[in-house]
C-alpha cells in the first residue's frame, strides 16, 4: 500500500484553521474595543452630568433645592460603570486603556462625592457616604467580602453612596484621599464612614447600624439647619 500524503491538502487545512483562529481573535478584539468604547461613553455621560450638577450647584443660591434633580440617575450610572469596569478588569485584562478608565472613574467618584456632600448638606437630602479602599495589587479576600457587604447594603439603602478606590490607583487625587484619611496598604480593606476610619473587614451587623446612624445624623443636621433658618 502506498501512503501518499497530500501536502497540498495539509496546507489548505492549515490555512483554513489559521483563518478561523485569526477570525476568533479578531472578533474578540472587536468586541473588547466595543466594550471599552461603551465604557468611555458612560464616562463621558457621567462627566457631563457632573459638570451640569456643578453648574446647577453654583446657581443654587439663586434656585431652590427642589430644582436639583437627576442625582439618583447619576448614582445609577456610576454604579453601572463601576460594575462594568470591574468586569472589564477581570475579563479584558488590565490593559492601559482599562487602567486609564479606572483612573478616570476614581476621579469622577471623588467629584461626585464632593458635590453630593455639598448638595446633601445644603438641601438636606438623606444620603449616607461611605468611602471604601481596597487593593487589587495582591490577593485580598477580605476586600472581596467587604465588597459583598457594601453591595448588599447598597441594595437595601438606595440613598447609600459608596465610593470605592483601588489603593494602587496611580492618580494624585486618589493619593490625596489616601493621605487625608491615613489609609495604609497593610490595613485593607478600609472604610471611611462620616469621617471615621475603620480598618479591616467590617461585617454587615457592624456596618448597618453605623450607616443607619449616619442617616440619623443627616436628619439632625437638617433639623439644625432648619432651626438656624428660623432663628
Amino acid at each position, binding site marked *: *500500500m502506498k501512503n501518499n*500524503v497530500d501536502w497540498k491538502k*495539509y496546507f489548505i*487545512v492549515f490555512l483554513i*484553521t489559521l483563518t478561523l483562529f485569526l477570525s*476568533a481573535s479578531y472578533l474578540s478584539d472587536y468586541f473588547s474595543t466595543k*466594550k471599552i468604547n461603551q465604557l468611555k461613553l458612560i464616562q463621558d455621560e457621567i462627566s457631563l452630568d457632573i459638570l451640569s450638577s456643578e453648574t446647577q450647584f453654583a446657581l443654587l443660591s439663586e434656585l431652590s433645592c427642589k430644582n436639583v434633580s437627576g442625582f439618583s440617575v447619576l448614582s445609577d450610572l456610576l454604579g453601572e460603570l463601576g460594575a462594568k469596569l470591574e468586569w472589564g478588569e477581570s475579563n479584558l485584562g488590565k490593559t492601559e486603556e482599562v487602567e486609564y478608565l479606572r483612573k478616570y472613574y476614581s476621579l469622577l467618584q471623588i467629584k461626585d462625592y464632593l458635590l453630593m456632600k455639598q448638595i446633601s448638606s445644603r438641601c438636606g437630602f438623606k444620603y449616607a457616604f461611605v468611602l471604601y479602599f481596597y487593593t487589587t495589587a495582591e490577593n485580598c479576600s477580605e476586600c*472581596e467580602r467587604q465588597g459583598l*457587604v457594601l453591595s448588599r447594603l447598597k441594595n437595601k439603602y438606595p440613598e447609600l453612596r459608596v465610593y470605592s478606590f483601588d489603593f494602587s490607583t496611580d492618580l494624585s487625587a486618589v493619593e490625596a484621599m489616601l493621605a487625608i484619611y491615613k489609609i495604609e496598604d497593610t490595613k485593607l480593606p478600609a472604610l471611611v464612614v462620616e469621617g471615621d476610619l475603620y480598618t479591616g473587614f467590617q461585617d454587615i451587623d457592624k456596618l448597618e447600624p453605623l450607616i443607619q446612624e449616619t442617616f440619623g445624623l443627616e436628619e439632625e443636621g437638617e433639623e439644625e439647619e432648619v432651626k438656624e433658618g428660623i432663628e
Partner: protein
Amino acid sequence: MFLLVTFLENRKTIKNRKGKVVLARYPTVTVTVPCFNEERTIYKTVRSLLDLNYPKEKLKIFLVDDGSTDGTLNIIQKFAKYSNVKVFHKENGGKHTALNLGLENCDTEFSGCLDADSYVDSDSLVRIMSYFERDESTMAVAPSIEVSNPKNIIEYAQKAEYYMSIYVKKMLGLINAIHVTPGPLTIFRRKVFEELGPYRSAHNTEDMEIAYRMQKNHMKIEQCHDAFVYTNTPSSVRRLYQQRLRWIYGFINNTIDYRGVLFQKKYGNFSLFTVPAGIVSIIAASYLFSRIAIRLWNFVEGKIVELRTVGFEFSSPFYNFDPFFINTKSVLFVILILYSLVIVSIVLGHKIAEKKVFPLHILYFFSIYSVVAPFWLFSSIYNTIVAKRPSWR
C-alpha cells in the same frame, strides 16, 4: 477541519448502494464470536449471522465461549446443529485469546470478529466483501456501527456519537488512516494474521492494536459505510464511563507502544493526522475541561463566601441583563467553532448513513458527554501515569 475538507473532496463518491450487491466470486469467510457472559444478547447475535445474505457454504461461524459463568454456553450449544457453526469452549483468558482460538482453527480466506452484543444487517457481509473484490490491496474492512434499539438518553446520546463515528471513520478510510478495526464485524484477509501474528491483549483494546500494527506494516484498512452493524451500548453512565476509560486508556497506551510511527511520512496520514489529532484532542479537551472546572469552582467558592458574608438573597442572573457582560474572549469563539464542527460531523454521519437527524439526540450527546467525558479523560491519563489497567466491565 481536515475531515471536512476530505468530505468535500469526496462527497460525490460517498453513496449508499441500493438493492442487492452481487460479487463475482464469494470467498470463504470465518466470523468468530467471542462470548463471555452474554446470555442476554448472544441468541440474537448468532441469529443475525445465520440470516446473512451470504452463501452458507462460504461462511463459517465460530462461537467461542470464553469461560462464561452464566447460561451463554447452553445457548450457543443449541446452534451447533447448523453445519457452518462450530462451538468452542475454553477457560476465561480475555477477548484476544478467544479471537486467537478462532484464528487457529480458521482455514478460510477471510476472517473476522463479531462482538456478542452486536447484530449484523443481512447485507453487511456481502457489502464488506465487495470492497475486497474491488481492491486487491485492501487488507481489512470495517462496517458502520449504529446503536441498537436505544431506550434512554445515555443510549440516544451514544446514537448521535456513533453517527459521528460513521463520518469520521469513513473520512479516515478514504485517506488510509483508520486507527481501529472495531469488534463488530471487521473482516480481515487471513494474510494479515499470517504475516503479523495473532491478536494481543493490548491494554484491553486488541481491535485498536491490530489496526496500529497493520498501519505500521502498510496494510490498507477501509470503511464500508453502507454495511451496517447494530450494537448494544452501555445504558448507564457508570458503564459508559468504564467503556470509554478502556478506550481512551487503550488509545494512549497503544500510541505510547507505537510511538515510533508518529510523524513519519512513510506511515502516511495515520501517522501525520489520525494519531496526532487524537493526542491533540485529548490535550485540548483536558485543557478546556480544566478551565471550565476552575471557573465553576471559583463561581461556587464565590457563592459560598457570599453566603457566609451576607447570607442568601435571591437574585435572578437575567435581571437587568446587559449584553456587555457576555464573555467575548477568543477561546469562546474557538469553542463555538469546535462545537459547530462536532455538530456538522454528526449531521454528515447521518447523511452518509442516509438517516434522519434528531437534534434532540445531539443535545443529549453534548449534555452528557460534556459532564462525563472529563472524568474518563482524566482517569485514563491518571491510570496511564500510575500504570493501572482499566477492567472490561
